[in-house]
């Protein structure tokens, strides 16, 4: 058991070495600064949300429903990377995304509801800019 745990720990340490501090443009950031910075660049997520909003504006609700899945998937995949940066901010954006998903995915989606949920989402994302 102890040999096992030591072997596992050694393998994991070897793997994680050099991955332990955040980098930006090749520059090592102090951990404290990284902890204080907000969620970072949300542009890729905002772009999809804006496209979904444009589809809703055009009246293409089925198209919006398809496109918003990309936002859900991309956001979900980035959770482990983004959340530790600012957990409270992450939850705020996450809830706004959930509301937008819910509105667009209703069996009989209401255009006004969708527009409002997406406008809220975009403004929440914009408010996160550091």
């Amino acid at each position, binding site marked *: 058991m*102890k040999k096992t745990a030591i072997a*596992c*720990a050694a393998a994991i340490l070897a793997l994680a070495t050099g991955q332990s501090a955040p980098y930006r443009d090749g520059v090592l950031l102090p951990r404290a600064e990284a902890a204080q910075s907000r969620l970072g660049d949300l542009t890729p997520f905002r772009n999809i949300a804006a496209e979904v909003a444009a589809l809703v504006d055009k009246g293409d609700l089925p198209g919006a429903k398809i496109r918003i899945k990309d936002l859900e998937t991309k956001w979900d995949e980035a959770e482990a*990377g983004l959340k530790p940066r*600012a957990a409270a901010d992450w939850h705020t954006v996450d809830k706004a995304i959930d509301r937008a998903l819910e509105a667009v995915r209703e069996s009989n989606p209401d255009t006004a509801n969708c527009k409002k949920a997406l406008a809220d989402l975009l403004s929440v994302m914009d408010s996160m800019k550091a």
Partner: protein
Amino acid sequence: MLGNKRIGDMLNKVPEVTVIFWIIKIMSTTVGETGADYLAVHVGLGTTLTGLLMASLLTVALVVQLSMNRYVPWIYWLTVVLVSVVGTQITDFLSDKLEVSLYISTAAFAVILAATFASWYAVERTLSIHTIVTTRRELFYWAAILFTFALGTAAGDLATEALGLGFSVGVLAFAALIAADAGASALGVDAVLTFWVAYILTRPLGASLGDLLSQSREYGGLGLGTIYTSLAFLTVIITLVAWLSFEGERASKTQAFPSN
């Protein structure tokens, strides 16, 4: 040696703790979580349906596992993967749907786990994992495992939320805690205690390790993506479990005579 077994006798139903045990356990954690996530988000089943599906699969796997009269690697490890998924989902359900604070769920699962061990000891007068030879003991074992996964998930998420602990530091921090636990074991601290502490800690370690491999380089990961990371881990798990199955006949000789 198999000829020596009397019909109806139950051999120890769970594996000895070896390097391979921990490798499979850590990787099962990652595969369990990314697998459930994949069904919920990419396949679009949603968290509720995925949760019900996984709970049903776990029930079936557990019934099969309980019906065995010795340790059979594939069904044991399939049950561990499914317990890992369901334990994680219980915590996620509390946090995301019921909005229970992670401080409360972490404390609650710690109390429930302690109560599980207390009743296990009260009934069996031992917590040894070398003598899981009755169905009642095995049920205590699986209940303890379920709550270690729930506690490990809650404690790991709490470290992320409250301390801003990302996966890179997380891997190092949880590996260091496990090393300290191994050191305690080497210094003679109770083997049962250090085993279960390691079992809890390997949950957030497995999650951080999976994130380290799968997350994009932008976030400090290696950028393999969740699908390739899960497939790679799944391949390792299947290879090791297959190897254990073929080696199993020889190992069953030693398992018939547990040391404590």
